[in-house]
């Protein structure tokens, strides 16, 4: 166990009830009623719930005032009612909503005051708060050790790779440093192994993990799960050297989002995303000539501007890049941080400081020849940070017993369903049923993604007809779709059965004909096989050409 002096410092702060009492100019009153330990416990639990909810309530009030803090609101109010009305009108905020949020905050504070004014309750709450602080200190210490271990492992790996790549052997100082790093890694592993985790600490660690994913989803529309973390750890050292990377995968597998996430979170730069198409023009790559105040100027493209500003460039669907630009592309792909690239039109010398990341959709055999990346381009990625395949999360993942599992998808969807404390608002009686619904949903989505992947790879109807696979030509249900369905389910307070939400948010959102309609039909079939839509009528799916008889057969009614 980590010694107390090594534990991170957790600042001495006043608890929410103390602050609320202080703001109201009150202190805990002398004992007026005698409470049993059980009664105190109940009140402390309520106080904890209210205190945990208060920041969110307060944030809502701030939002309904257009971001004004309490002090700013008071200053505005002091200017008079007209100033307040003008401010609110300029923001076009529904006054009813503002009143609702303000009264909620006032009632929250009122109840906190009421509960905290009993000295025994406040004392018990402070005890609980101190215990939580102790747990938090442990969590931070554990987190810190893990981060240090990852950093030490990365540095060691990077240095060894460096010596290996350039065929050098480290000198005496280099050897000593490498040895020091290896020792530190062993030491940290030992410390982590010996770290005494109790149930409360594990609970908090897991909740923090959920919270972290919620933040990442909100900020980057991406959440890092184990397989993605592993991939990022593999490519990041090369990317930092400016080496290019290619992410290839099925549509909707999150390639572009992953590239954006790496750029924003790990490289700390906003990337320039260039959507490549067969119609892309030279001006979109190098820039255009124009006139400004009567003078001819050259306006750099986003691509060049990003290079100048040291921002990573994401070439989306690079496989569609017309062959005539291969020369420029190859030139760029060979550059590393510190190299200089000369603009072919302006002659400006641009020092490279950020990498190129590219994505490519895996195409079916039908399109492969036309859209596959040429070997020369592919080789330049392989010589960089690599040409990596990105598939749907959890694809082909099974437990030791051979059953399909989807832990990473469940982790992300769980963080979408949870509140900021890591809880899902399912009551105890409903939780088993809701969990079952969710797992069946994930299972159906996985089946669709797997069959889609197979359809893309094998293409031929004959291969698919021989198995229990269904052919999906154009449509697939992506993680993003699943997240949207979860958000809608949560927004409805989980009152609706999940199948209603799937129907509304997925099937009814677009009426599609042709081959895609067949894909939707197959999707409905997969959901039915996973115990959804047992009594849904054909017209409710909004799928053109869906035959009532087929549906009844899938539903086991004929």
């Amino acid at each position, binding site marked *: 166990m980590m010694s107390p002096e090594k534990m991170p410092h957790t600042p001495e702060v006043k608890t929410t009830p103390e602050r609320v009492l202080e703001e109201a100019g009150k202190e805990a009153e002398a004992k007026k009623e005698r409470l049993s330990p059980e009664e105190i*416990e109940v009140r402390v639990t309520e106080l904890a719930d209210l205190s945990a909810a208060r920041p969110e309530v307060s944030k809502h009030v701030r939002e309904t005032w257009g971001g004004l803090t309490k002090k700013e609101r008071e200053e505005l109010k002091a200017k008079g009612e007209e100033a307040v009305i003008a401010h609110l009108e300029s923001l076009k905020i529904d006054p009813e909503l503002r009143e609702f949020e303000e009264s909620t905050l006032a009632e929250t504070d009122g109840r906190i005051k009421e509960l905290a004014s009993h000295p025994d309750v406040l004392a018990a709450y402070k005890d609980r708060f101190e215990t939580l602080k102790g747990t938090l200190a442990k969590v931070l210490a554990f987190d810190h050790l893990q981060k240090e271990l990852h950093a030490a492992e990365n540095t060691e790996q990077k240095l060894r790779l460096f010596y290996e790549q350039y065929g050098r052997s480290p000198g005496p100082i280099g050897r000593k440093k490498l040895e020091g790093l290896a020792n530190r890694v062993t030491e940290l592993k030992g410390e982590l*192994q010996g770290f*005494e*985790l*109790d*149930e409360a600490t*594990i*609970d908090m*660690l*897991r*909740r923090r*993990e*959920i919270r972290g994913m919620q933040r990442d989803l909100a900020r980057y529309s991406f959440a890092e799960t184990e397989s993605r973390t592993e991939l990022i750890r593999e490519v990041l050292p090369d990317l930092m050297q400016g080496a290019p990377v290619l992410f290839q995968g099925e549509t909707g597998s999150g390639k572009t989002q992953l590239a954006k996430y790496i750029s924003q979170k790990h490289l700390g730069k906003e990337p320039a995303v260039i959507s490549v198409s067969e119609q892309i023009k030279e001006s979109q790559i190098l820039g255009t000539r124009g006139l400004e105040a009567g003078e001819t100027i050259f306006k750099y493209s986003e691509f060049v501007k990003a290079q100048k500003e040291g921002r990573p460039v994401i070439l989306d669907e690079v496989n569609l890049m017309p062959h005539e630009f291969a020369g420029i592309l190859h030139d760029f792909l060979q550059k590393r941080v510190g190299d200089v690239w000369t603009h072919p039109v302006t002659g400006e010398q641009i020092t490279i400081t950020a990498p190129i990341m590219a994505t490519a959709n895996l195409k079916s055999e039908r399109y492969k020849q036309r859209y596959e990346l040429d070997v020369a381009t592919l080789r330049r990625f392989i010589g960089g940070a690599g040409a990596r395949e990105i598939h749907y999360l959890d694809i082909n993942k099974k*437990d*030791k*017993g051979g*059953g399909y*599992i989807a*832990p*990473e998808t*469940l*982790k992300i*969807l*769980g*963080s979408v*369903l*949870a*509140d900021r*404390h*890591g*809880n*899902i*608002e*399912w*009551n*105890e*009686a409903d*939780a*088993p049923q*809701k*969990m079952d619904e*969710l797992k069946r949903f994930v299972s159906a989505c996985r089946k669709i993604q797997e069959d889609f992947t197979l359809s893309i790879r094998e293409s031929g109807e004959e291969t698919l007809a021989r198995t229990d696979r269904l052919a999906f030509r154009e449509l697939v249900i992506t993680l993003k779709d699943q997240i949207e369905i979860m958000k809608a389910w949560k927004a409805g307070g989980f009152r609706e059965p999940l199948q209603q939400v799937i129907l509304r948010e997925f099937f009814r959102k677009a009426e599609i004909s042709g081959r895609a309609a067949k894909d939707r039909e197959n999707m409905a079939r997969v959901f039915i096989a996973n115990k959804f839509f047992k009594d849904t009528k054909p017209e409710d799916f909004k799928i053109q050409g869906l035959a009532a008889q087929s549906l009844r057969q899938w539903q086991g009614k004929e």
Partner: protein
Amino acid sequence: MPFEAYKLYQEYEPDKYKTSTQKKAEGVLKEVDEMKRAQGKETVSGIEFQEARELLGEDLIGPEEIEKTWGVRPEEIPDIPFSREELERAKEMGQMLVLRVDRTEDGKPMSMEAMNTILAKRWEKEKKGGLLNTAEGWRDKVTGSKDFSEVAPRAGWALISKELLKDSTSKNYIEQTDVIIKALREQAFKDIEMPEEYEEAIREFEVNKDRLTKLMGENWQQAAKELAELKITQITRQSIQETIYDLALYYDKNGKRLLLNVYTWSNSRSTDGRLVDLGDFGARGVLDFGWTPAYRYGDLGVLLSRRL
């Protein structure tokens, strides 16, 4: 009580975080293995325990869970009496593996009374509901005070179905036994050699089946007594103490209530000689009924439980 989101996937990350107790338990098992290896003995538990843990995930209830729920650390952890193949089969069948102990921390029997006392306060605090619906009802109407406070589950490892056996509802006690035998032959021991004890128990049942069917209509008390004492009943059905023990542990560990709206027919008899069925494990706790063996109902089925 809200549902912790991480419960959706934590079963897939058994090694991500471990409590000190878990680490200690693993350490002890490792030491035992090393000792056995040093003595030239085959290692039965250690590696197999870990394998079983990896294989079954949340469906393995072992020493750490016992310590957490009942506050008692088994002095010796018995070897798991099932092969990997049997455990894989059990997983396919939706069974859990539970280690049962028969003594509390202070050496008293792990009776219904003891289990209820251990959990009542904590569950109330954690808003987990109750264990027995109601303790007085169980004691006064079903078990009698002696059985309530002195009879414990049979100690050792057991494999128990988490859901009622398919097609076991709406069947009387003898018809349910047929379902159990079918599950043993066609699922649990399919392509696996059935232990002699089972063969013997099945033979005994088949020899007496017609007579017992007739007896049910003539003298249900005698039929219930004989049915409860049959070997097949004893080795494949839980006692009421065992059902309560298993339900409590599984719920305490995984937050999932088994037998939520259904009942399993046990091998125990009530004070008036009826065969006790129990279940409907909601927030108020496990509910009981006692029926004559000829009774049938749509929510009454049976869980398969085996100790060898």
